[in-house]
């Protein structure tokens, strides 16, 4: 077993939380992992990515070679396209379709739609809508995490311990919404994305 994935989004969107949860789940399964993340300058609202590798054998490089990623997991649709060169020919893209428009020259809806639709293997999720239905716009990243679970060989329960560590001290409600977000995302992942 070896899974390589690129996690991406914009600084502050919570991709470090996603990777933390996946790493913990991998550790609990007795797997190895390496996860290279971004700190510093780029975290100030810039484009951020993380290379995450999990395997049942030793992993050499912290960085994924081009063409070796099984998965791109993104909390923002534009960011997906920066890392497309890392994807295997049959790699999957799981992304939120909710744009984070922090720049003046953000591409128009047509450009984004056309590109997203052209992607061969994709799971598109309106994470904002799902998060709102759960009751907190903050859990969008966790919805996306849930959507990736199946592709990585996990079920929602694998993520519970790490979610408790991350959100337990923020109160019962917040923890519950995050667990729910994983489960909702998981269902959507299995179903191939948000309908429509």
């Amino acid at each position, binding site marked *: 077993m070896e899974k390589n994935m690129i996690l991406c989004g914009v600084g502050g969107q919570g991709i470090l939380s996603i990777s933390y949860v996946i790493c913990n789940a991998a550790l609990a399964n007795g797997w190895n992992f*390496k996860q290279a993340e971004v700190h510093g300058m780029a975290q100030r609202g810039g484009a951020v990515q993380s290379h995450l590798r999990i395997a049942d054998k030793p992993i050499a490089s912290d960085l994924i070679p*081009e*063409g070796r990623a099984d998965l791109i997991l993104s909390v923002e649709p534009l960011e997906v396209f920066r890392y497309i060169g890392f994807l295997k020919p049959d790699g999957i893209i799981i992304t939120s379709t909710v744009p984070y428009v922090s720049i003046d020259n953000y*591409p128009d809806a047509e450009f984004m739609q056309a590109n997203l639709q052209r992607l061969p293997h994709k799971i598109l999720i309106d994470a904002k809508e799902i998060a709102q239905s759960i009751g907190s716009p903050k859990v969008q990243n966790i919805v996306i995490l849930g959507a990736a679970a199946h592709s990585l060989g996990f079920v929602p329960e694998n993520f519970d311990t790490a979610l408790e560590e991350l959100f337990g001290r923020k109160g019962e409600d917040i923890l519950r919404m995050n667990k729910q977000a994983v489960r909702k995302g998981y269902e959507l992942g299995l179903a191939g994305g948000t309908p429509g």
Partner: protein
Amino acid sequence: MQQLLLLGNEAVGMGALHAGLSAVFGYPGTPSTEVFEFVEKLAPKYGVRAVWSANEKVAFEEALGMSHAGKRSMVTMKHVGLNVAADPFMNSAMTGVNGGLVVAVADDPGMHSSQNEQDSRYYADFARLPCFEPSSQQEAYDMMRSIFEVSETMDVPVMLRLVTRLSHSRANITPNTDILDQNPLNPSNDWKKWVLLPPNARIRNRLLIEKQRDLVNLSERSPYNSLDLKEGAKLGIISTGIATNYVMENVADLEQPVNLLKISQYPIPEHLIKEIVRASDELLVVEEGYPFVESKMLGIFGIPGKTVRGKLSGDIPATGEMNCDFVRKALGLAPFSKLNFDPGVLPGRPPMLCKGCPHADAFKALKKAAESIPGTKMFSDIGCYTLGVLPPYLCGETCVDMGASVSMAYGSASAGVYPVVAIIGDSTFIHSGMTPLIGAAKHDADITVMIMDNSFVAMTGAQETMTTGQPLIDLIERLGVDRSHIVPFNPLPRHHNENVNLIRRELEHHGTSVLIPQRVCVKAAKR
């Protein structure tokens, strides 16, 4: 023992704590910061001291004082921090240590968050000190014990060279089952080694030179250096630190056997290099950073009869961060096939000031005030506020090294430029902006210094600034600035007009003024 999930930097901190560390000193700087912060978090549990210092030079000397007392200590900084601490670093090689001393320096190849990508191994070489360069989080953890041992047995500070990609990558590691006790308090009485008056210094230098043979021998036998010669191999690959991983990622795809030499402990193991050179017709040198080993191997004359490839030959890019793909290409392997998809031209997404950032409002007022006096030159410095040089603020035309805003402004004003503004953060000011301000104020230099007091070292993750608010104002006054030209103000949009007026007044004043926008970093306030 249970596996731990740690960043490379955290593995260093854990390794140090488990190796009998008594104190960590440092000044924040990406990518080094988490080494200190990890120790800081566990300091009460391990009975260890962890307090940030005013700058890297101070931190280094505090660590050296701790070592003088017989305790094991560590000092952390980013690569450019070692420039600031270079004086004690070079001289501590002469004095040697009492308790073990680790200098943990994190380089930033690719300049993710830095002004340059200098390679700290040259500093270790320059000071004639040993250097360890871990290839993985586990190795970083394991090395800490060896480093303290080498430091104490060889009587030298030891450098731990980290790089961004290891510092900020997480992995599972297996810790030791035993934890070493701290050294007892045992201050050195050997004053001759610590007083670097010329007669003593000459003796110390000779001793340092005599130690070099032993240090090389340690490298030859180091468990962190390994030579693997294969029957029939024509190609030999020499790799250092984490560059080894990029080699290992690719070697399985090679059809021919290869000789491998991994180096993670310096000085360079000369014998091991000679062995792999002897056993190979062609060599590839893969390093994260400058071509340090490659240049040393080749010297001026090269190695007759052998082809050596690497950064100097152009087979691997001379700048930027190393990765699997560069190594793959240098090995002549075909790239992996990838998804064929062209998304068209994508707009960049550069970092920017947070919404509601106090710096933004200060810059708006400064820009407006400066518009009324043509020819204003603004010298900026290093921190979140450096982003003010970009549109829409356009405040600042330089960013060189910490503190340079004030000294460059003074230099520029001395040349006759007017008006001249220095823009500097509160932490950067304490780090190295105070010293140039003393001279400028003494001569009443015609400059306006704007000290961005947001109470935090925001850029590096919101550590508390050492001096802020009223104590900062008092400090500036004692440095010699006329109290009537020390002007604090609240950078809020609703005070914009009055702020523009008071800034303009100080720009027009022909003498040293200090403006202090005071408002807490919104990001730090939210935590």
